[in-house]
């Protein structure tokens, strides 16, 4: 029998916080995407933990969908990064200020 679910949930909360801090603090768009992946992984860990605690397969099915959405998001996001890099030669979010008034 593995550890009580609270340990896993706490770890997931810490992982989510690290990802959120990275998303707010870093300025490189690629790193910001990786921080979003960290947050999605924290959510996945929470889903699997609750699936085990409640003995319900629904949580694991939802992890499946989160994986699909993460893959689609990364594909489109990196496509946007490539398109912006062609035009502006930068991946730093602060340099993308064409709409600034």
């Amino acid at each position, binding site marked *: 029998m593995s550890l*009580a679910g609270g340990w896993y949930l706490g770890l997931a909360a810490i*992982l989510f916080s690290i990802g959120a801090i990275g998303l707010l603090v870093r300025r490189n768009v690629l790193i910001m995407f990786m921080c979003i992946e*960290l947050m999605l992984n924290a959510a996945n860990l929470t889903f699997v933990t609750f*699936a085990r*605690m409640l003995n319900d397969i629904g949580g*694991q099915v939802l992890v499946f969908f989160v994986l699909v959405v993460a893959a689609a998001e990364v*594909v489109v996001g990196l496509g946007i990064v490539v398109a912006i890099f062609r035009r502006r030669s930068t991946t730093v979010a602060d340099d993308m200020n064409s709409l600034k008034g």
Partner: protein
Amino acid sequence: MHPTLLLLASSRPTLPDVLVFAASAAVILVGALGVVTSRNPVHAALSLVMTLFGVAVLFIEQEADFLAAVQIIVYAGAIVVLFLFVIMFLGVDRREEIEVDSLVGQRPLAFILIGLTLVGVVVMAATAHWVTGAHQVVGPIHGHITSSPTSPYGEPAQLGKQLFTTYLFAFEATAALLVIAVVGAVVLARRPPMPQDAPPEESATELSS
């Protein structure tokens, strides 16, 4: 059982379980901090792989073996490789200056707000009594997928059964989502056509090469 008791109940974990959890937690946190603090995007991507492996180990520890395999194949095998491909393709794999706080006061504010959120979540999880905790709404993790004892048994069988019955509509919607994502990525990454300064024969050779 009461939800709070369920959350905090110690189910007599064995020493190997504690060690596995501690090791994976350390791997996950070191990898996550590596993603946030490394200046080189390639190093950040490799730290991300570390975190993903740690999460996969915790999936196995929690009876989600199939999801652990999918996690490694999809995340480490596809998403991180895509990240590395784009990093190399754009040639941004050089050190980045991260000491500069370009938006004054944003960095300490981020730490304070996220810290408050984390503390709030932990306090809420430790004290709340409103976690519904309904058991087995969709189906058990393990078990025969039909009443016959010869039917497939275990967690992948249950996952597949629920995916193609209860969640069939969502599953079909993900198919549409993936097609849209592929088309969108192709459209976005396409080089924009420049009809005025590119003669047609040059674009033809560019296509064939």
